[in-house]
């Protein structure tokens, strides 16, 4: 899902950077200092979760779980996922530096959206109902991320359009798996620790 340096046109890069700064500022505004330890630890756990490889047929995919991050953190998911992307670029060499803004918008934007749309629904009703909404939220976020990646490639040049389409088709199994996993994760969390979610009382907003 990471775009590398050199592929995108300058307007796309600048637009992405501006949007990312806005998203981070908004996220930090919704993050009081008391919440920073929790946000940091959750950000770290999403970083670790993205290292998990899930088998699918003869191959395996690694998780992104941005939908789940949005459901748990709400707006704070933006700076949290940005930090993860920054650390990945600097210490792992995934992605790039000038594309950091675009990558943040593509991955953290859908996360925040999923949190805003599905956050309250997830904390309502029984655990099973929450799990279904959570699964939808998880699938929605990763589908939106794939579309956003395809869109930023297509905006940069027509030569990327076939590649962008291929990226989307190739990610359909990933979308399904992320949805299933997010749903299951929320089912467990709802039973063990219901106050975890953005929409719940005393949770993130």
């Amino acid at each position, binding site marked *: 899902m990471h775009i590398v340096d050199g592929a995108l046109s300058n307007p796309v890069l600048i637009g992405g950077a501006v949007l990312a700064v806005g998203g981070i500022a908004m996220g930090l505004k919704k993050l009081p200092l008391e919440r920073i330890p929790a946000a*940091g*630890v959750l950000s770290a756990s999403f970083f670790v979760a993205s290292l*998990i490889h899930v088998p699918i047929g003869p191959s395996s995919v690694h998780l992104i779980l941005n939908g789940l991050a949005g459901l748990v953190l709400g707006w704070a998911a933006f700076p949290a996922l940005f930090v993860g992307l920054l650390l990945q670029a600097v210490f792992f060499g995934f992605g790039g530096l000038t594309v950091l803004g675009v990558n943040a918008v593509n991955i953290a934007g859908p996360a925040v959206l999923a949190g805003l749309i599905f956050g309250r629904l997830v904390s309502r009703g029984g655990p099973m109902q929450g799990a279904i909404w959570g699964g939808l939220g998880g699938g929605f976020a990763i589908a939106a991320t794939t579309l956003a990646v395809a869109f930023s490639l297509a905006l940069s040049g027509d030569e990327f359009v076939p590649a962008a389409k291929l990226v989307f088709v190739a990610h359909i199994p990933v979308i399904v798996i992320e949805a299933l996993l*997010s749903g*299951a994760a929320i089912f467990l969390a709802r039973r063990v620790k219901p106050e975890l979610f953005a929409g719940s009382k005393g949770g993130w907003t």
Partner: protein
Amino acid sequence: MTYVLTGEDKPLTGFGALRAAVSSLDPRMRIVMTVIYAVTVVALDDLRVLSGALVLSMWLLAISGLPFQKTLKRMAMMDGFIIFTLILLPFTMPGTPMFSVFGFDATWEGLWRATEIALTANAVILAVMTLVGSMEPVTMGHALFALKTPERLVHLMMFTIRYIDVLREEYLRLRTSMKLRGFRPGTNWHTYRSYGYLVGMMLVRAIERSERILAAMKCRGFCGRIVLLEEFRLTRTDLMFAGAMVLALTALIWAEVAYAAA
């Protein structure tokens, strides 16, 4: 400290043996120069100039004191991710046909574009990994703060850096206990549900851990401000390094302009 971030067995920035030219330079200057370098290289188009940029990145790697093979292997991993997009490019870009596969024409223009992206991406990420990635992650946080990054973002980053390692160990413990109970991953509902529960459990434990952290911080008089202690000093060596980098970048830009005019 953060083994997950800086290498599988031990940090790339060891003390003593690996301490080389680049790690003695001011971290703030390294971050600023990396950003300038990245922006410049992304703006370049000519393949010859971009090759020059890659050579410059290689030189940075050579003086950084990072293990050569390991760093290049990481860079190759990134190439593995983008290779499919790059292979598609010659077939999707209009231009002079080069050869055709199953009726699809590959064009020279597409090949040059793919090469350009590959060179840019590798040159930039190599410079990022050697100039910034060679720092202790905590030092990077302090340096970013010194460069006027919002305090809360830096704190968020510091907490993330601190707990990545802890949570990875927690993850490995959970995986071990799954294995002990006979879990074997495959393509089935049971696997996906189990992985989902694993992620859910990690989140629950993370949030409980963060409650304990906050309690411990309050117990020690946390009053809403975290002090970042490190102080940086710009030395003559730093200025010389920055000067050399600027000179090299100017040469690259000059070459680009000269080739474009020719």
